[in-house]
């Protein structure tokens, strides 16, 4: 409770929370906010912003404002779901390796290291070639698979440190099961680190999605901020004078990313006693 209270005392965390909540609200209320269907191509193409189309229309006659609003859903989901999958993988690999040590650690650390050194982008292309049903899920899987290794490394070393602490040693001596020690002793004590890693991964996911879409490797048919940018760039939106088409989705990504980063920052500050005021 204390922690939650002080969380709100940090200005940065409040700012991060507000931005994130704003986007979550937009995502939930998308059907009510967006005036049109995001995929309908019925409008005049390339209209400049006006009262009917707040952000103008795309080259195929889609309402950009509606696309940005609906895009919030998928972009946010990509960030959050990928963050969750990534952190789950990191916990599984990192904590198991750090807690058990020995041969288990050897094998798991090696797997972690291999995923660290295999270049992400080619791996993404190759994995994408196998998944037959293309869509945002593909992107989520691909980014999660290529993104968990760094977190696993961090969590592993943290688990190793915790393991040598007296209260954990005590649990082990009393004869608690490993799963119990991990879930009730180790995990809670690493919560802050896990939350921080989660926001870090979510930021990485949102940016990676945009990057993949930019390269044309995503699902150009889906409505996300990344695909809006992709279509804008492919239609040379800037040269057409349609600045808002490229600026708004880019700013949305940057803002959502900033909110993740601010929260990451705040969690760090909050839970690391040394980071708090002297």
């Amino acid at each position, binding site marked *: 409770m204390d922690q939650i209270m002080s969380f709100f005392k940090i200005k940065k965390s409040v700012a991060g929370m507000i931005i994130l909540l704003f986007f979550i609200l937009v995502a939930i209320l998308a059907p009510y906010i967006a005036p049109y269907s995001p995929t309908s191509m019925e409008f005049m193409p390339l209209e400049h912003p006006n009262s009917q189309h707040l952000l103008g229309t795309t080259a195929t006659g889609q309402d950009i404002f509606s696309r940005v609003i609906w895009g919030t859903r998928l972009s946010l989901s990509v960030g959050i779901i990928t963050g969750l999958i990534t952190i789950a993988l990191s916990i599984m690999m990192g904590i198991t390796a750090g807690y058990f040590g020995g041969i288990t650690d050897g094998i798991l650390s090696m797997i972690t290291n291999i995923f660290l050194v295999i270049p992400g982008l080619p791996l993404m292309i190759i994995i994408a*070639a196998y998944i037959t049903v293309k869509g945002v899920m593909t992107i989520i899987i691909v980014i999660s698979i290529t993104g968990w290794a760094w977190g696993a490394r961090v969590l592993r070393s943290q688990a190793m440190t915790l393991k040598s602490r007296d209260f954990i040693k005590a649990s082990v001596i009393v004869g608690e099961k490993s799963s119990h020690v991990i879930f009730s002793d180790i995990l809670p004590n690493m919560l802050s680190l896990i939350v921080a890693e989660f926001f870090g991964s979510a930021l990485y996911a949102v940016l990676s999605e945009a990057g993949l879409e930019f390269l044309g490797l995503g699902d*150009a*048919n889906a409505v996300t901020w990344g695909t809006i940018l992709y279509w804008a760039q492919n239609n*040379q939106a800037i040269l*057409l004078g349609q600045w808002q088409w490229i600026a708004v989705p880019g700013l949305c990504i940057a803002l959502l990313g900033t909110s993740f980063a601010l929260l990451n920052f705040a969690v760090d500050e909050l839970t690391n006693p040394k980071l708090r005021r002297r």
Partner: protein
Amino acid sequence: MKKLALLVLVFSLIFVILGLGEPIKYGGTLRFIGGGGWAQFPDSMNPLLPEGGFSPVVAEIYEVLFYVNPLNGNITDLLGTSYEWKNNNLELDINTREGVKWSDGTPFTARDVAFTFNYIKKYPALDQLAVWSSTSGLESVEANGDNIVVFKFSKPNTPLFYYLSNIPIIPEHIWSTIKNPVTFKNENPVGTGPFLFKSSSPQNNVILAVKNPDYWRKGRPYVDKLEIRAVKSNTTSLLMLLRHDADWGDCTPADPKKLWVDKDPELNKMWWPVNNANILYLNTQKTPFDIPEFRKAVALAIDKESLVEKAYHGSCGGVAHPTGIIPSQQNEWLDPLLKDVNLRYSPQKAQELLTSIGFKKNSRGELMDSDGKVLPTYKILVGAGWTDYITMAQIISKNLENLGIKTVIDQEAGSTYMSSIMSGTYDMAICWWAGEGPSPYYYYYQGFYPPFSGSKIGETSLSDYARYTNPIITAALETFSKTSDIHLQKQAIYAIERIIVEDTPLVFLTNRTHFGCFSEAYLVGWPSDSNPYCAAEVIDSPGGAMITVNVHLK
């Protein structure tokens, strides 16, 4: 036809010289910018490797026998000066040009031509146009004296002339000593063409060439230098053109009129002639795509006008003709009776056709086949990141939904896309005609000739992506290739057209074009509708080389 072409050329030259009333200016540099296919120029200048396997300047260094304009069949004589089919079309004699010298001073003769053809026979990896394949019928190529090359055939194959005339001729005195020509990089190219290689900078992706002072065509080229550059994105090449940092680009702005021409209508010219068509391939080895009425219903259900507008901003040359014949060949090759045939968007007619074969919608609006089974969800295959194809697939998907057919868009990276199309594992796919050429024969030949088709799913179909064959089409293709009589050839093509209209083996969507963006800031003489001396091909092809000898300072 050839003579006529020559006359046209002479007259147009006279017209250009007299009509403008002032002498053509010499000098200047032609700057080309490429945005798409080239990632990094290879430093190979081996002209026998595939496009993309050699530097783009190679087509200006090595010449071919004749340039056959794929739009209209007009022939420009290059190293060949005339040709004649003999002996019931079992022999082709080509006269080669006299007085031509290789850039190292050695005279060019017919023996070099014979050597080139026998060379690619010896090294099949270099036979990029498959002129020696088992289906071509080519038996031997020999020089008869200094100026005649004799091609002998085991069976008549007159359309092969187009492929034969497109092979770059290499000097025997240099290539006869090369040990492994397949990996030979040919860093000091010796050719007969209008330009000489100067230098290349792989880091900057730039290649420079200079005018060949001893070029056989007196007074050409007009420009002194070529500067060929590739950049890594389409937008960048457009920006380079807009900044007048380039004169000519193989550049595909989303809306070329707005983004290029309208920015400066005086100077910014575009010529995007139709050379191909976009086709919705239906896998005819899968049901229900094996039912002609079903295919026709699909064709009728698609709003092709909307594809032209939304996917191409109207710049793709319009809706494709239901026979697939490109506009510039319709006058000569389209059966007058079929001229007005069209498959205009009509969901209602499509619905009626489906009803006629027993396909009905159920209460949920899903289409059921004649046994009352709901059709599965089909995939529409497109290349990942190909925005025009993805847009078309989105519209087609919506159109088919009205019929009760569910589809999803399957975006695959290049190699996966092509392998699904060739192995026939796809349901529906958007792709192009596999063949191109100066008459519809070349499109139909690659598209329907049985040796290029896989007999069952999984077996490779080299170019018959729909996996459709028809004995009448096969017979007509054979009739065409046996004769050099244009009237017989026309009848053969008409026969194929009728089958296509009746049977709808392919669903034609929109036309496809070459993408010539030209700037008249410094240079003029670009090809255009009124002066179609080539088809606005890219600089790495014989058609592109035609542009380099025609443009000059303004």
